[in-house]
């Protein structure tokens, strides 16, 4: 009998369509796997009935000869940042605990329309602010991976750490993620899976709890490049309800997948050779070049001179936007209200927000409030936006010399939970390679490259031109075919 939990999106979709098995069998297997993996703490709530209902609908559609959607019969995990009608949506915060949306986000609605079902809402860093999944009000998520011969719980990355943990542990074939400054790519790299952040605007932000609106972008996380291509196609759409939605046709990425990179030039940015980058990561980068050469690509050295300034610019822009976006949590319209006896409106705001936000969220709101305050706005915020323009211009200049960029996804492999908590800055540096593409709004993907000497996964990052997810996916496929990454975490949960 097939172990359905080993199957990915494509295998499930094709198996259901051809009648090799039913969507219900698949949903039941994953529901059981989710129920048996509580120790990972990957889910905030589980929705086995949602998964079964979608499965039954897919099976019924097949039985009556109707056309099946691109994700028909595939149960997925939904990051708890997407509003889901009638199902609690918290952004892993206390302030939204119990919040039950009366509508469905565009991305999740697209996925249900394509025939997918929901296994549950996935844990994350609170309001997607974090790189280790240690800022959730609902507790840390553990990676299914551990160092060889060690028992310490490792970080699944963040902020989409519930997503990465669930997909790597085979309790979900795929999951949604969101990426503001690396929140899809870094967790994908830490857990040996694939994840793509498309061009800014491809996936609607309508119904996604906002962190930094000019950067937030949804994308799929799965165990193969093909699965990511299929799921991204199902998630993306033009949406008039999102003012920054891309009004362009969604390409059929799956159909155009090809690992033949003849004629493509791959840029290697010299500024990404940074002090403190792990040796095993540098070695995997070299290996990545060889794989892409083998696929027919030409390797060229390029320069992205403002790379060093991308991360500090991000840590002004993202908190500034967050401080503005999170002003909506006021104890009036939804979410927590903390109203001490005799308190007035202003006290209610301050008490509610003190009780409802975690430490990292407060820290970022304060930074954002400070850099936007009178007298500091130009020195910090305007300067950061100008630097952002220069980071984006670096990429524009690079495209004169190459078609895509290869770089590491992260400067190190995963680390034990709790090991980087003393200093917020050390944690922020995790996203040093991921943030430049976010600032420029470019499509970027992480694919597994191999294991480090400790037995932990490493990822390689591909960054493409705006709107050119196809080249990114194709190069990802070329790496996937050559890396032959088949390692999986040993079950301890």
């Amino acid at each position: 009998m097939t172990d359905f939990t080993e199957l990915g999106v494509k295998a499930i979709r094709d198996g259901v369509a051809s009648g090799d098995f039913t969507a219900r069998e698949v949903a039941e297997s994953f529901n059981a796997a989710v129920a048996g993996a509580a120790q990972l703490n990957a889910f905030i709530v589980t929705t086995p009935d949602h998964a079964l209902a979608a499965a039954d609908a897919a099976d019924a559609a097949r039985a009556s000869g109707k056309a099946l959607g691109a994700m028909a019969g595939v149960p997925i995990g939904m990051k708890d940042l997407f509003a889901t009608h009638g199902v609690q949506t918290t952004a892993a915060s206390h302030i939204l605990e119990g919040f039950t949306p009366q509508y469905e986000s565009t991305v999740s609605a697209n996925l249900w329309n394509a025939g997918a079902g929901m296994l549950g809402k996935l844990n994350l860093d609170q309001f997607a602010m974090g790189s280790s999944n240690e800022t959730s009000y609902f507790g840390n998520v553990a990676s299914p991976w551990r160092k060889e011969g060690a028992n310490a719980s490792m970080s699944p990355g963040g902020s989409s750490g519930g997503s990465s943990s669930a997909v790597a542990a085979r309790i979900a074939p795929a999951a949604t993620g969101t990426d503001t400054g690396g929140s899809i790519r870094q967790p994908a790299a830490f857990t040996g899976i694939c994840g793509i952040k498309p061009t800014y605007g491809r996936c609607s932000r309508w119904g996604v709890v906002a962190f930094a609106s000019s950067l937030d972008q949804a994308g799929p996380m799965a165990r193969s490049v093909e699965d990511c291509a299929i799921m991204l196609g199902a998630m993306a759409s033009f949406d008039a309800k999102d003012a920054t939605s891309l009004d362009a046709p969604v390409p059929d990425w799956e159909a155009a997948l090809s690992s033949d990179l003849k004629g493509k030039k791959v840029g290697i940015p010299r500024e990404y050779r940074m002090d403190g980058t792990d040796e095993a990561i540098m070695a995997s980068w070299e290996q990545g070049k060889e794989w892409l050469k083998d696929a027919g690509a030409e390797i060229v050295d390029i320069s992205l001179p403002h790379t060093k300034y991308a991360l500090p610019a991000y840590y002004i822009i993202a908190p500034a936007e967050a401080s503005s976006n999170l002003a909506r949590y006021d104890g009036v319209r939804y979410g927590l209200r903390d109203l001490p006896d005799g308190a007035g409106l202003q006290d209610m705001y301050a008490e509610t927000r003190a009780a409802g936000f975690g430490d990292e969220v407060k820290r970022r709101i304060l930074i954002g409030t400070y850099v936007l305050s009178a007298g500091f706005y130009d020195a910090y915020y305007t300067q950061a936006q100008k630097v952002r323009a220069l980071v984006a211009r670096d990429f524009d200049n690079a495209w004169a010399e190459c078609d895509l960029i290869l770089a590491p996804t992260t400067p190190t492999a995963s680390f034990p939970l709790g090991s980087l908590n003393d200093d917020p800055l050390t944690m922020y540096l995790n996203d040093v390679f991921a943030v430049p593409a976010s600032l420029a709004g470019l499509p970027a993907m992480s694919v597994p490259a191999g294991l480090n000497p400790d037995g932990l996964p490493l990822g390689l990052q591909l960054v493409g031109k705006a709107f050119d997810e196809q080249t990114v996916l194709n190069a990802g496929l070329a790496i996937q075919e050559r890396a032959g990454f088949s390692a999986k975490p040993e079950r301890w949960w």
Partner: protein
Amino acid sequence: MSVDKQTVAKIAGLARIKMGDDQLEALVPELNNILDWVEQLGEVDVTGVEPMAAVIPGAMRLRADEVDADPKTGGGRQGDVLANAPAAEHGFFGVPKVIE
């Protein structure tokens, strides 16, 4: 530029987050570390560079001048709007008394 406890208290007030003395004190070095680090942006020559506010430059779209063109964002959804309110009263959001 660096912040002291008084400045952090002022920012927390602007952000409407109540904070005790110990929290304010703990935040002073944390925020200063972050601010010292972002200070390096001052080195960058940005002469003639326009601040970047949007990734894909483009004009704002206008929607059709039609009432409730999209029912999801249209009117007539008072029940949905109030469904998650901590204190909905008589079809409104209830708040503590603001006028003496």
